[in-house]
């Protein structure tokens, strides 16, 4: 019961937060000197009447505060509005969300499945050759800029012809059988996944290793060892359960990252994800689209933290009693 009350309280707290986030982002976008109609205005064959019509359609002829009010009302009603080119924002997002989810989910799954065990092993075999090798590799992984790595892999793909040059599906995708479709998508995903995996694996592995080292150094682990428990039990029953707490908080952030995507990598690989869509929207000051994505990001972050907190309550009895 207490837990449910706690969740309810947390959800109520997010409302003022969302309002503030939306106001700040709306006014910053609108106050920037970017003109959403610039391209139209610079096209000699578009008449002034058309430009005026567009201005009225996008509501740019009204004061910013009125624009915000209009946006907020329709947002609360669940209508995300239309993009500057007249397409439905919700539809635009719906087109991209599955693609981004596919990519980020695979990457997160892989990094956690590989990163956490590697972190534990490195901590247990602290200062062994294996640990040192991992340190070198993860340092490289953390140091290499994602876009640069992506470009290198693209050049690799061009040279060898082993991988397609970006995108998600081949031109003849519709005519393929299910098995071929599955292979086609996998084939397209390999390179972007490698890039994102390399980058995020490094951070996660180091984090896990540091946590584990901290715990291994603590008195109760020494005590457990002194008691004569087997090394296996010491590490996996006593140390690990304590070391994993900070990782759960981290998982909350990872959840928020599910939909924010990796704009740079998506851009280089011409991957049709949210990151690229939003990057392009910001460049054109496409307000409804940018606002929708920012709000989505904010909600995901809040939700992620909430989930992490709930998970912590479940795993850690100390927090449970306080909540």
């Amino acid at each position, binding site marked *: 019961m207490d837990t449910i009350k706690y969740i309810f309280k947390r959800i109520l707290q997010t409302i003022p937060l969302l309002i503030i986030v939306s106001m700040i982002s709306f006014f910053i976008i609108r106050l920037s*000197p*970017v*003109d*959403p109609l*610039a*391209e*139209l*205005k*610079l*096209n*000699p*064959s*578009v*008449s*002034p*009447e*058309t*430009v005026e*019509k*567009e201005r009225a*359609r996008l509501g740019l002829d009204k004061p910013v505060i009125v624009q915000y009010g209009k946006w907020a009302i329709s947002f609360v009603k669940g209508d995300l509005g239309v993009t500057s*080119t*007249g*397409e*439905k924002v919700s*539809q*635009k997002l719906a*087109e*991209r969300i599955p693609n981004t989810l596919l990519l980020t989910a695979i990457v997160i799954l892989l990094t956690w499945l590989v990163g956490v065990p590697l972190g534990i092993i490195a901590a247990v075999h602290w200062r062994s050759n294996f640990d040192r090798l991992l340190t070198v590799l993860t340092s*490289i992984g953390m140091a*290499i800029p994602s876009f640069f790595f992506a470009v*290198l892999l*693209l*050049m*690799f*793909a*061009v*040279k060898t*012809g082993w991988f*397609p*040059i*970006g*995108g*998600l*599906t081949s*031109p003849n*995708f*519709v005519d393929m059988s299910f098995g071929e479709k599955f292979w086609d998508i996998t084939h397209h995903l390999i390179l972007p996944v490698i890039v994102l995996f*390399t980058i995020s694996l490094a951070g996660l592995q180091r984090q896990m290793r540091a946590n584990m080292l901290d715990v291994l150094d603590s008195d109760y682990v020494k005590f457990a060892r002194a008691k004569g428990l087997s090394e296996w039990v010491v590490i996996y029953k006593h140390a690990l359960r304590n070391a994993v707490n900070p990782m759960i908080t981290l998982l909350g952030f990872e959840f928020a990252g599910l939909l924010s995507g990796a704009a740079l990598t998506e*851009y*280089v690989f*011409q991957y*049709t994800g949210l990151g*690229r*869509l939003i990057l*392009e929207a910001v*460049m*054109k*000051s496409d307000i409804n689209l940018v606002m929708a994505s920012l709000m989505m990001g904010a909600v995901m972050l809040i939700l992620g933290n909430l989930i992490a907190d709930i998970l912590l309550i479940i795993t850690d009895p100390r927090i449970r009693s306080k909540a």
Partner: protein
Amino acid sequence: MLLCVIALFCKACIVRDVQPKITSEVKTSASDLALSYSMPKNVTINGIDYLQSQAPVGIFGGTLVSSTIGEGPKTFNPFNCKDNTSAIMSGVMYDGLFTTNPVTGEVAPKLAKGYTISPDGKVYTIYLRQGIRWSDGKPITADDVVFTWQNIIFGGMGDTSTRDSLVINGKLPTVRKYGDNVVVFSTPEPYAPFLRMLSAPIAPKHVFYDAVQKGNAYFDSFLSTNAKPKDFVVSGAFKLKEYVPAQRVVFERNPNYYEINAKNQKLPYLDKLVYLIVGDLNNEVLKFEAKELDVISLQGSKVARYKSLESHSDFKLYNLGPDTGTMYISMNLNNRKNDKGKYYVNPIKQKWFSDLNFRTAVDYAVDRKSMVLNIANGIGEPLFTPESLNSIYLNKKLKPYDKNLDKAKALLKKSGFRTDKKGRLFDKDGHRVEFDLYTNAGNTEREAIGVMVKQDLEDLGMKVNFKPIEFNSLVNKLVSTFDWDMVIMGLTGSPLEPNGGKNVWLSDGRLHMFNMRTPQEGKIGILPWERELDEMFDKGALATKFEDRKVYYDKYQEIVYTQKPMIYIYSPIRIVAIRNKFKNIYPTSLGGLTHNIEEIYINKGSKIQGH
């Protein structure tokens, strides 16, 4: 492992980049081929008026993969296109009454088989083809044409630019049908650009009728990118098969297309036409090299490499001649105040920019030849006129000239400018000549031009603060807030119809950037030569004969050439590459590479050599 991969790349790069020195000569193979191209002719078989291809008979089947840079089409509704990509996509599907002969630039028949114009130049009689059909099998008739013009275009549906430019003395042309295959347009005054405007796409009435009835808001989202492929009823050679957002647009052949080959088989030859949506130029190049693309348009620096690869690769380069885009430097001649009583341009700078000697000195200081060599890698032509070099209205009497610093300095001296011992330039009131030069950040070509212009002008002792800023912000400065000194920009124009540039040149035009007036200001403070420009554009639009119009448009180019409100720099030359297996390729300067897409076929035999 990573290091190994990197090392491998580096090795690959070295081999690639150290190519033999390249001369920029890609022979003008396009113009020779263009001359051998003959337009399809009208033929009547069993009462159906076909268009018959005169090109060699080819083989049916296959796919051509092309690309479009950016975010892809915003709509497939041909009357809603406000951007180039959407216009190309709908242009593939919807034919107009006429098209442009890609070799001569004359008006050529498409859905119409011919036309006559009354002696007073006001009445256009259009004869439609008999027996031709939409992709769903319904006949294409005069009703469709009248509906398109009356209800969609004149009715103000979608993008109203065509209608807005057709209002002559407050009146629109009228359109009426006589029987199923004759349509008559009458304009209130003779209006020369009208005939070319008739190449606007024609909509199938039975599909568009409901959308038009539901009004503007519905029409704006009608046949948008969310529409299902089966909802499209088209007259063009290809029909939408699949659209995957941000990835590709796939077209399939329209089985009812009205063009046939010499053996009376229905065109097009290709089964599919695919446009991949690519984010930027680099990705496009990678995709071409990985053979995912069949066609690519090349920028200056890439041409040299492709030229050296051409001989042992499966593609061929074609030179399409100068681009229709023009790049220019412009100074802000605005001498008015904004609504807060503040000058848009600092009055000290106003004096410089409004001085013809100053503008001419800037012009003579600019080294176009070295820009062509260094920035466009020699793939360009210096430009001195507002009409692009392939325009049929180009004034050939306006002679090019070279950089001439002495002449520039003499002109500045004449206007009282002087330089101090350190070579810094001051005006006659003792103010240091210093101003901002803007261009849009991210356009590497313009940024490079900016750096060279800055250096050239510093030879005259001017201090130039070169500031590349974000595109949308720059446009805002140019057309809304007017707070800029000098700018490097580009515009695209039509090589066939100078009247399209009236938004730029009319003194109250929406893009009259060098001396922009707000709509409230009207034609306030008009300069004598601006008045002359207005006159030339008004007369040019109303004259009907090419020769008469040429006189007016020659004069307009001459005014710009001497008054220098815009100083033109160069036109890039368009180089395109296409795989050898494609035949019936007749690239022209006006039509580009795939103007005859329905005649292009794949020679299956050449595959062995290709892959």
